[in-house]
């Protein structure tokens, strides 16, 4: 019996993924980021809401290389001094940016993962049902078109406006927003898989609809689903940041990457690092998810095997 399990396709896929350098780099970045976010209290001594007005708007560690330390020298400004310990500087309230990035990541990543999973669950089910039962196709897909027809941000804002501003509602809004893309892609793939000879062969062996749908069709849609999930993960991160930027995400003082960018826009000229740092973090995370999704698709496509 154990023989059958030995060539686990999941394990082969993981092995192949680990052979790809770019994918490994992305994976490492994401894992490190996730670990740092989880163990934030162990990494930074500061709290995300701890204010210190005496060190407002200080630069990060990079200021050590250019700053003028001699108080007598022309151009000396105490406010441009790096405060040891605040690696990424402080914001307008004198809060530690590094701590806010770490704690903010908790919100961004959790909302990203949960909303993607919720969207995946509903979207994939809708897509499969629409593809397999022709009678459900039109009703389901027209609802999806309706969701698609709304500008995405507007839709999310509408949902949040109806449900009220808090992080759970934001998650729901983003999940609803990602349902149609799952549904549409999975429907397309499932329609194609449904016509394959082996589905007919399985039917001729007497398999029930549920078995065909979830055992055979769903499995053959998995590569598509995984790829969309990673891509949606990236867009969910952007969405939560965007919504927070627009003030529809987290409630202050809870930090969130998009909210940090939004709060820093007044200091854009005198302290650009406040917008730059969370921006880079969002960008790197999103790119990593995208690359990972791309590589996964290459690996999971059975026609490219061996």
């Amino acid at each position, binding site marked *: 019996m154990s*023989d059958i399990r030995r060539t686990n396709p999941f394990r082969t896929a993981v092995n192949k993924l680990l052979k790809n350098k770019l994918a490994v780099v992305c994976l490492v970045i994401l894992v490190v980021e996730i670990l740092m976010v989880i163990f934030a209290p162990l990494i930074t001594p500061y709290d995300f809401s701890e204010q210190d007005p005496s060190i407002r708007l200080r630069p990060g560690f990079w200021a050590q290389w250019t700053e003028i330390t001699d108080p007598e020298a022309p151009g000396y400004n105490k406010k441009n001094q790096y405060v040891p310990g605040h690696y990424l500087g402080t914001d307008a309230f004198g809060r530690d940016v590094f701590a806010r990035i770490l704690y903010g990541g908790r919100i961004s990543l959790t909302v990203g993962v949960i909303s993607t999973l919720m969207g995946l669950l509903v979207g994939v089910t809708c897509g499969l049902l629409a593809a397999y039962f022709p009678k459900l196709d039109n009703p389901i897909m027209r609802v999806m078109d309706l969701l698609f027809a709304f500008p995405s941000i507007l839709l999310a804002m509408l949902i949040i406006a109806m449900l009220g501003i808090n992080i759970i509602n934001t998650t729901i809004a983003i999940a609803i927003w990602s349902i149609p893309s799952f549904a549409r892609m999975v429907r397309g793939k499932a329609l194609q898989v449904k016509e394959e000879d082996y589905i007919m062969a399985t*039917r*001729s062996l007497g398999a029930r609809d549920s078995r065909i749908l979830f055992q055979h069709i769903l499995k*053959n849609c998995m590569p598509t689903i995984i790829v969309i999930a990673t891509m949606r993960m990236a867009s969910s991160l952007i969405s939560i940041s965007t919504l927070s930027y627009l003030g529809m995400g987290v409630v202050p003082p809870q930090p969130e990457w998009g909210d940090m960018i939004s709060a820093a826009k007044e200091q854009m000229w005198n302290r650009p690092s406040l917008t730059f740092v969370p921006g880079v973090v969002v960008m790197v995370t999103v790119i990593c998810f995208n690359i990972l999704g791309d590589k996964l698709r290459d690996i999971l496509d059975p026609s490219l*095997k061996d």
Partner: protein
Amino acid sequence: MAKAVLEVRNLVATFRIDKKEYPVLRDISFTVHENETVCMVGESGCGKSVTTLTIMDLLPSNGRVVSGSIKLNGQELTTLTRKERNALRGKRMGMIFQEPMTALNPLLTIGRQLTEGLRLHQGMTKKQAYDTAVEYLEKVGIANPQDRMKQYPFQLSGGLRQRIMIAMVMAVQPSLLIADEPTTALDVTIQKQVLVLLNKLKKDVSTGVLFITHDLGVVAEIADRVVILYAGCKVEEGAIGEIFSNPQHPYTIGLMKAVPDVEAEEFDIQPIPGVFPNITEEIGGCRFHPRCPYATDRCRSELPQEIEISPGHTVSCHLVKEAQE
């Protein structure tokens, strides 16, 4: 006479195209007995595959059975519910498909796919199903069955896959096996092996086989009886020897002439003139008359009745009937 496994009587099926119903099967009747191979022969589009799909209840959504009866071991199938029929598929009747390259799920191991049916229909445990699957892989002549069980379809050749399909279907010991051109996609040596294998398994399990093909060489190899279809109608049916030595219907005679004879001095194939009718085409009288070299006015206006010219040998042709009278 052996027990009848499959009895098809006056089967009529239609396809709906652009909101119009077009008949694809026009009053087809035949019987498959236990331990017997019935070959169904005809050009592409004559309704061979549709007949098999109708029996299996796997018609595309625009196809439906209008009238007629299909009996499996005496049980009427056309009145069963979808669910009841589904329960028979794979258990009492199995089907082998034309294209072995695509008839296996690419993402599941051979072992998974072989054991699925066994566990579903025979209620076997994982271990039992595994053992039975290995046993059947051996029966279809696959070396190292344990290793094969772990492999994926893409690691196997067409011939191997077709044997696996056969093992998959035969492992549940169905009373009826439908083979829809199972050798068309294989090369000649593999084809021969598969035919020998099918014959052997048929005897082991005493299954009735309905074998679809357009290759008369294969027919000569495997058939006990032959049913010849043309444009949705049965034109002739008879024992293999009868059909080959004494073909009656002009279409059957045409088919026989279209087979190249390697021993003849001149390599002379005589194709049947004209083209095969589209299903949307309305043809009055005998369906074959536009291509028939002997067609008379009667052929153009009146659908010929089936007559029996010798025991078990039936033909639907006005000319044969007139010659007899």
